[in-house]
């Protein structure tokens, strides 16, 4: 099957293909802009959010701000992610308590929902000395199948979602009841709230990013131009007790998704390895042939 006659061209072809794909990926990954903003506010850091880490839940939401510069424009659509680290959303005890059948209609009492990430962000751009809000789209951040099929609110009782949720306790850590999530928007409240759905798709690894908002509307439909920005954070999610960090990430996306140098490099390495092997094989092949010819002579 794999004689030298087939294997040698195969290796070279594979190698070249690998290099080509690798270069493509590497180039694509290079064009992607990404900005990481840590706002954990560790106690002895002079971060603005540090004061919020001590605030108790009773004193109400703690607001902190973060100013940053974009040296180059981020072409749209720009995604706003939050990232948590050392957060074991994939812990079995954490995930095992959920019950998806409840999420399509019945009340619940479970850890995933209870620990819903509840920091909120708003973004402003400095235009002519004043900060203009950047419109953040909260829709379309979850899988379409999740928000439209898998997660369903209970049947309305007397035309009211609140009555449908009557008698169910709100998750203890939540500031408000489920039916009050994004209260203004009836299509984005209760179980079908997209922030909630995104949170419910448990992450694979202890350091994970989740899509928060997307910037693709209004003046910013072409992306974020370079300049100064201010991120207002409604800080209420404690991460320091488990030595975690919180970050906000602004990232553009391409056909390959977000920035990831790994895939490109892996392809380049694989391609080079193939070609290298091809050459070694060729050398061995030629050597054997010469030997045989010498034997014949």
């Amino acid at each position: 099957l794999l004689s030298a006659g087939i294997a040698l061209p195969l290796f070279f072809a594979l190698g070249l293909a690998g290099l080509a794909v690798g270069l493509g990926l590497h180039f694509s990954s290079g064009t992607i802009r990404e900005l990481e903003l840590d706002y954990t506010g560790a106690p002895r850091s002079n971060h603005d959010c540090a004061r919020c880490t001590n605030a108790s839940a009773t004193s109400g939401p703690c607001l902190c701000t973060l100013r940053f510069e974009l040296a180059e424009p981020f072409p749209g659509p720009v995604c706003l992610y939050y990232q948590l680290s050392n957060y074991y959303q994939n812990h079995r005890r954490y995930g095992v308590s959920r019950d998806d059948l409840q999420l399509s209609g019945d009340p619940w009492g479970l850890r995933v929902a209870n620990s819903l990430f509840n920091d909120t962000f708003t973004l402003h751009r400095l235009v002519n000395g004043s900060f203009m809000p950047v419109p953040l789209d909260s829709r379309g951040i979850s899988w379409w199948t999740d928000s439209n099929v898998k997660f369903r609110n209970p049947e309305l009782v007397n035309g009211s979602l609140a009555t449908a949720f009557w008698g169910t306790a709100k998750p203890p850590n939540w500031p408000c009841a489920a039916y009050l999530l994004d209260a203004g928007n009836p299509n984005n409240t209760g179980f079908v709230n997209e922030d909630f759905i995104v949170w419910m798709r448990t992450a694979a690894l202890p350091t994970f990013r989740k899509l928060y908002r997307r910037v693709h509307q209004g003046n910013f439909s072409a992306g974020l131009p370079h300049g100064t920005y201010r991120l207002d954070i409604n800080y209420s999610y404690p991460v320091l007790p488990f030595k975690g960090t919180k970050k906000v990430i602004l990232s553009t996306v391409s056909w390959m998704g977000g920035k990831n140098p790994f895939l490109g490099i892996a392809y380049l390495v694989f391609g080079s390895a193939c070609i290298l092997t091809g050459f070694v094989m060729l050398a061995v092949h030629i050597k054997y042939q010469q030997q045989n010819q010498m034997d014949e002579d």
Partner: protein
Amino acid sequence: MCAGEEKRVGTRTVLVGHRPVSETDAYVAQKFCDNRIVSSKYTVWNFLPKNLFEQFRRIANFYFLIIFLVQVIVDTPTSPVTSGLPLFFVITVTAIKQGYEDWLRHRADNEVNKSNVFVIENAKQVRKESEKIKVGDIVEVKADETFPCDLIFLASSSPDGTCYVTTASLDGESNFKTHYAVRDTTVLCTHEAIDSLAATIECEQPQPDLYKFVGRINIYRSNQEPIARSLGPENLLLKGSTLKNTKKIYGVAVYTGMETKMALNYQGKSQKRSAVEKSINAFLVVYLCILLSKATVCTTMKYVWQSNPFNDEPWYNEKTKKEKEAFKVLRMFTDFLSFMVLFNFIIPVSMYVTVEMQKFLGSFFISWDKEMYDEEIKEGALVNTSDLNEELGQVEYVFTDKTGTLTENSMEFIECCIDGHKYKESISEVDGPLKYYGKAEKCREELFLRALCLCHTVQIKEGDQVDGLIGHLEHRSTYISSSPDEIALVKGAKKYGFSFLGLENDYMKVKNQNNETERYQLLHILNFDPVRRRMSVIVRTITGKLLLFCKGADSSIFPKVQQDEIQQTKAHVDRNAMDGYRTLCVAFKELSQEEYDQIDKQICEAKMALQDREEKMAKVFEDIEANMHLIGATAVEDKLQEQAAETIEALHAAGMKVWVLTGDKMETAKSTCYACRLFQTNTELLELTTKTVGHSERKEDRLHELLMEYHKRLLQDFPKNRGGHKRSWMLNHEYGLIIDGSTLSLILNPSQDSSSSNYKTIFLQICLKCTAVLCCRMAPLQKAQIVRMVKSTKGSPITLSIGDGANDVSMILEAHVGIGIKGKEGRQASRNSDYAVPKFKHLRKLLLAHGHLYYVRIAHLVQYFFYKNLCFILPQFLYQFFCGFSQQPLYDAAYLTMYNICFTSLPILAYSLLEQHINIETLTSDPQLYMKISDNAMLQWKPFLYWTFLGAFEGLVFFFGVYYLFQNSSLEDNGKVFGNWTFGTIVFTILVFTVTLKLALDTRFWTWMNHFVIWGSLAFYVFFSFFWGGIIWPFLKQQRMYFVFAHMVTSLSTWLAIILLIFISLFPEILLIVFKNVRRKAQEHPLSSCSLKLPAITAFLGVNKSNIQIENQREVGAEGTSRGHPSSPASCLRQHHPYPNYPIHATNQKCPL
């Protein structure tokens, strides 16, 4: 009046027709079992518990049951369904299979048990169901009916009190056997008459030997002393055999139901287990260790990790109340069990099912093989067990019988000598008249021919066609006998004018040269037995003369005749033996009436004995057959089977050692060995026979001297550092050993026990260093002894026994693999064998092609199964390091369950059934390939480690490849994120594709079926994933997989990653294949390779071809050159032993006839 008086325990007394015979003798009513045959194992009621119990006795099933129970009891990461479903599947399939088989057995039992039989009760014929027969019932059986139980034959419709029986369904012998009614009850052939019989039967308790029966009947008549008659196997009609050519018979039931000899014979065939299974178990232990260490590592790491309180119980993930309250040790234990459950898939349930299916289905390839189909007997190979298929590829020692195995066992009368004169038909006149050489006296010639006509147990089977002419009947009849030699002799006598016409009312009819029919009353047959190696008949001529004719092996006849007669015949016999003919000597003696009366009494007494009858008979026979006069000898040729020599040579070239174990005499066996190239002309023969050892008192010392001498010689030839070349063929010398039965027993059972074991080991060392060993004059048990001896040597080599006769059964059962030849000596060998083939030559394909392939297939199957489960579970293990050692499964439960059952099972099954990594023709023609897999080469630790490393490498690639892929914020072009189930699904997809493609890379022989299952499995995986993720399943608590797969395939990055990781995983494998190909190509180069190619064959073709005698004219395969005029070694030897011209003794013996 002869009556034995022994009444011992271990006999049973049967009242014929349940009638008490006398008031004085109080018989304790014995209880016997009823006539129900129960071959089924289960009933409707006990099927479930009994079957389950038996299935869970298997260690693997039990393991999975434990895992399942742990899952049910302990809170484990995967649902009990994941291991319960496969286990349930396996158990159900096995139970259904066993249930079906048992149902068939029930049906067969019922057919037998409910069949109608006729029992005589109160002089009336009563119809009964077979199962209602009780011991003591008188049963009537009509022609072509099967005997419902073991019966003592009382009376028959034929006036001479005989009946014909065929035992085809018992031992496969289709010839008619004559059975004899008890002499005194022969006349009782009506209902009334038989009902008046008052008799008791004493006989031994049931025992399985079909050919042994000892009993006595006491017949009571009013006011008379009871008459006692001996009963032997000839009076016993066995259940399962069929009545032929006899209208009806009456018999009394002695053994019923499960105590019949047939039922006893169906039990107790021990299960043979193959070496591969031992390897599997060893690997299993390794994987169990891996499993345990993984679980231990994870448990330890979990508690180390949890020692940080922020890891142990972060605010978002509080412990349950139960968790908080449990003791720490208990928690650790449950954690350990949970990890065990999580990783338990590393030991696959399905492997056992697949192995079983592979063996079961694979064995059909042997029985379907058209090349092993024999036109003559219209049968192909037979597989009695499928457990040993792969063992056929591992054989190191082949023990073969000679007669009927290496040779055709179709005997042809070649020549005879009478008083030292040679009589041989000229070839030109095949059916010509007798050539009188006029050397011996005419009356001696006639005596000799009459002896041939009378001294045998041949029967005449009359054909259906009778050419009826008025007053002249000519029967188209054939001779049948259990011994082909006898037929050859009778046919030989016919050629010289004396033909045997058959036995009629104890009279043997012989037509002499003048077409007159002579009648001889047959008084006694002293049957052949392998110890005496003789048989005799005592007849009375019309004139009232009493004659004993005896024929047998020369060694057993010569001591029994006048010593001065031996010389002239011996020369003939020796020369004939050199030529490879089977020789028999014929002797006679005349008996006076007094002598005969004495003999008659002795025989009668011996026959009456209930205990040790055989020994007593042998003793009596020994005494009778003495002081005889030698008349002459016969030579019968046993043709070599076609391709016997080529087959032996191929087996040699394949590194197997061939031992011939035969009951035949040394000279005959030796010449056969030369003819079939077991010994070559340059083979140095070491002889340990009575000839070299001698008969003297000092024979044991002499034997030890010889042993030491041979041992020294062999040691010089085999330097010690040759250890690695176990099957090397580059020896300076080839040694062959010849040993005979008596010398062997001297070695194995020495008289004085000092240092005897030492000699035994020396003998064994000599044996193992010889390329060929010939053991002649072996008793059946000695054959088995030899096999056992070799089997238990260091390294326990795999042995194979092949034979065709009942005397080979013991060695067939003893060896790892027993092969029966469907020969002429009945079907006992093939019944007891693991595989049966029509001819010896089929052994070549069976071992070199089938055995090799089965071994490679199953070895690959086993390694592949372990490999694919290692790379299946390793990512799951690694994932624990990233999920806080919380036993979070990486894959969805459906994937965990289906991986081994659906996604990856069929391709390997198809591979393990169809793979031919080298095509069959090459395998058959190049025996050296067989050596490549010797010593279980593919299941040694080295290949196992290779596969394990491959699995580990791929597991690492899968996991870390996807891990680094997930460092990305998003893999979709819309910025949405994937969760942990997508992570697992990507790994799983790469896994399924990689292991399937790896198998595709290993597949050398593609059939449409391979294509279908390999690509079908992958397509099924994709289809299933879409389907599984496409529906909200109402019975699932969590819809983890909802649209996960569909989302995954929309991501280009994921596609690229999957393709890349599959390539990287397969890269080492491809590299290895290519390097192997390059190297092989270099080796296949003509100049560098020809010196390696088949040294044995080429050496043979060059040197020995023209010197070897092959009986059947064939072309030597490889070179296509035909042998010119063979000058056999035998014919060379003939010149050294010129035909001696002994002066004709003036015989002063009278012609008795």
